[in-house]
């Protein structure tokens, strides 16, 4: 745009303040400096991270952790149920059984409390019990000899 006629003339001496000529190397160096300083800011602008990306990053460890927690919980539940299992009641017939030789009946281990009558009957018996005596014991009868 042309200067207006009433503009005061430019001060020629001001040319002295003009920037000195710079070498290509100096210009290149400045450009590289600027680009290096800008790189961190530019990288922040690339591929902005959304909340879904953050969640996706945690998905795999989250699934593994959830699986482990499920396995541990299931194991703990099973263990507690086994511990709480109540022994099923057994009959005296199952506890007292004749030995093969027909002598003293074998006392089988039971989870139930010992049957006092059965103990008493066994204590009262002398010698080898005969089949009738055992039968009566099995029936719950006590022979008082």
């Amino acid at each position: 745009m042309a200067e207006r006629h009433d503009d005061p003339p430019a001060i020629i001496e001001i040319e002295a303040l003009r920037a000195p000529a710079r070498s290509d190397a100096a210009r290149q160096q400045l450009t590289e400096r600027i680009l290096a300083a800008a790189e961190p800011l530019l990288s922040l602008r690339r591929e902005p991270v959304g909340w879904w990306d953050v969640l996706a990053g945690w998905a795999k460890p989250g699934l593994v952790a959830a699986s482990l927690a499920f396995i541990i919980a299931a194991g703990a539940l099973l263990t507690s149920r086994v511990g709480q299992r109540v022994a099923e009641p057994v009959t005296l017939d199952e506890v007292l059984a004749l030995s093969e030789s027909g002598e003293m009946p074998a006392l089988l281990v039971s989870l139930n409390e010992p049957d006092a009558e059965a103990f008493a009957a066994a204590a009262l018996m002398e010698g080898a019990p005969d089949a009738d005596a055992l039968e009566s014991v099995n029936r719950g009868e006590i022979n008082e000899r």
Partner: protein
Amino acid sequence: MTAREGDSPAHDEPFLVERVRQGDGQAFGMLVERYSDQAFAVAYGFLQHAEDTEDLVQDAFIRALEKIDSLGRGSSFGPWFYRLLVNAALNRRKYLARRHTHEVPDAVAGHENPAADADRAELRRQLAGALSLLPADLETVVILHDLEGFKHPEIAKILGIPEGTCRSHLWKARRQLRERLQEHPKPD
């Protein structure tokens, strides 16, 4: 095309700016290549010290990158960037003046006559001093117009002022500058 054609930017400039917004280093590099020389010249007009000027130009480009989202879609990068640069230069000069680290303008090298070098250095010192005493808007107009050859419409766009105000600023600036230089005649 020159970098300072702020009112008629390259047709690809909005596209470059958009790519910079997305973090494209190559696009940013193209803007730096396009504007860094003129930015250096303008900033040097304020600071008169090459190293300080390089630091300032770097800071201005980084600041532009930080604020690139505030540049309107389709707007010209040049005027916006130069306004940022000029403001940064004025602030930097204030800062340097407070720290008293910027007393002497760059020496002029390459002259064979030491006496002429000394005279020229003295002239530059006087001019720089007289310029820095002008109000900031007048100083900016005279540096952009008389030193770097920007046209009034370009300066008006950079400073966000009407063209008439820009002319008025230049008129006042030249007059005040001339008066100050006459108070301190240039060395023979």
